[in-house]
């Protein structure tokens, strides 16, 4: 009996002391680990898009970033992965606004393809080939006629893995590439005219607030899952008359099937006749909560600006 108690006690003590020590080490090293990770990531992002005037915005952790230059989105960077010959190859790729590859980089660290053969995917000449190619051209020459890429001699599997990682990544993330900016900025013109109807338009703040008859119309933006969502709101006596949410052809690029349902399911009709303080009670679209909230927030922040603008 005494022996049993001793056994339990010793195991218990070991089980207490060891995690205690580990939690201490974990707490001390975690911030350092995260910082080095972030630094390495930033370095690789800068390597595939070497321009000092840009900033990166994370769309999906560790896989997708948007590149901004002077507040307009000029391209995306993504990371995709594919099994190579003996390890997983994870190229980081930058794409411009036309959907063409700018540059790619394959990290040597953690890659264990055959040295001297598959490992050559990290060589410059191989990676340079990708520059300026579009999705259709991302095939090995020997696999498809339209392909424009040479494989590394006797390392076809590794080369093919890189090419298909890049191609599949581009296919998946293409929709996040911002459409050309000119239509983007003017998307609300038609909607504005239809909302105002026959009444005479009076500009209160250029590009932000208009007055037509007894109605005010304001333009606002909310941060959605993958893009900024524009919302045009017409308001009378502090009650929302109509809401127009930006359409895809107007530069709206939320996830199809999810975020895009704020358009498909006539989400805008739910706001009709609601007072501004009741907005929080409106149901979000299931599966598109972030996008729905973005619309709500856009209406609310726009309302605040509208009050200030009206009283001026």
């Amino acid at each position: 009996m005494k022996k049993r108690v001793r056994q339990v006690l010793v195991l218990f003590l070991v089980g207490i002391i060891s995690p205690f020590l580990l939690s201490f080490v974990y707490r001390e090293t975690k911030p350092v680990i995260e910082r080095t990770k972030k630094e390495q990531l930033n370095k690789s992002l800068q390597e595939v898009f070497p321009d000092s005037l840009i900033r990166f915005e994370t769309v999906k952790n560790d896989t997708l970033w948007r590149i901004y230059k002077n507040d307009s989105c000029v391209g995306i960077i993504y990371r995709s992965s594919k099994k190579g010959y003996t390890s997983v190859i994870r190229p980081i790729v930058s794409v411009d606004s036309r959907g063409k590859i700018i540059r790619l980089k394959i990290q040597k660290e953690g890659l264990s393809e055959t040295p001297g053969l598959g490992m050559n995917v990290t060589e410059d000449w191989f990676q340079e080939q990708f520059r300026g190619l579009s999705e259709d051209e991302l095939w090995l020459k020997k696999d498809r006629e339209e392909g424009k890429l040479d494989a590394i001699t006797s390392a076809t599997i590794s080369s093919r893995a890189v090419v298909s990682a890049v191609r599949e990544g581009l296919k998946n993330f293409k929709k996040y590439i911002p459409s050309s900016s000119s239509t983007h900025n003017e998307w609300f013109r038609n909607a504005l005219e239809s909302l105002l109807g026959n009444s005479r338009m009076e500009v209160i703040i250029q590009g932000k607030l208009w007055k037509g008859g007894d109605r005010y119309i304001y333009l606002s933006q909310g941060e959605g899952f993958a893009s900024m969502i524009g919302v045009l709101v017409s308001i009378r006596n502090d009650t929302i008359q109509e809401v127009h949410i930006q359409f895809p052809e107007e530069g709206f690029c939320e996830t199809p099937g999810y975020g895009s349902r704020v358009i498909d399911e006539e989400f805008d009709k739910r706001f009709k006749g609601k007072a501004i303080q009741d907005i929080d009670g409106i149901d979000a679209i299931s599966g598109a909560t972030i996008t729905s909230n973005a619309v709500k927030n856009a209406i609310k922040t726009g309302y605040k600006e509208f009050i200030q603008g009206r009283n001026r």
Partner: protein
Amino acid sequence: MSRTFIDGIIKNNLILVLAIGLCPTLAVTTSAYNGLGMGLAATFVLIFSNLIISAFRNIIPDNLRIPIFIVIIATFVTVVDYTLKAYVPFLSVQLGVFIPLIVVNCGILGRAEGFAYDHSPGYALMDGLGIGLGFTIILFVMGTIREILGQGIWLKIPGMFSGFKVFGEAFTNSSVILMILPPGGFLTIALLMGIFNLFRRK
């Protein structure tokens, strides 16, 4: 006590004599730096697990000793793992899964079971130091041989130092790639064991 230390390096050499813990030895010694890093990580774990196990050898119940050894070893391995990740991230990526795998390195469990469990802490510490140093030296030598023949450079430190060029450009461009592939590991370890035994017989 110094006898224990010397024995740890030569008479009880983990790789050349006892021939245990060969898995990380073959896998990570593709460069001298990797070998050194792996050796030092294992040495750290070895010293502390030997010390703790020896200090508490009278408390640890006989029939529960293996699970307790494993928990103690795993604790120190995790400490090493986090520390490497934080301060030498490149080395941590290179050694990859072989750092967490030190937990099941039979060299370390073997010393805990075979030596530390029935010796006093002083001896256990010396044994840990000796065995660890012997292990590190062999890993470093193997890494050196394989890196020089396989890549033509020595002591390359990823992200910091591009290595000494041992041979000329011509060799680097067409080096003996076999040496940094798995067969190279077996060849090198066989060579070292052979040479070692040749001298020991005499």
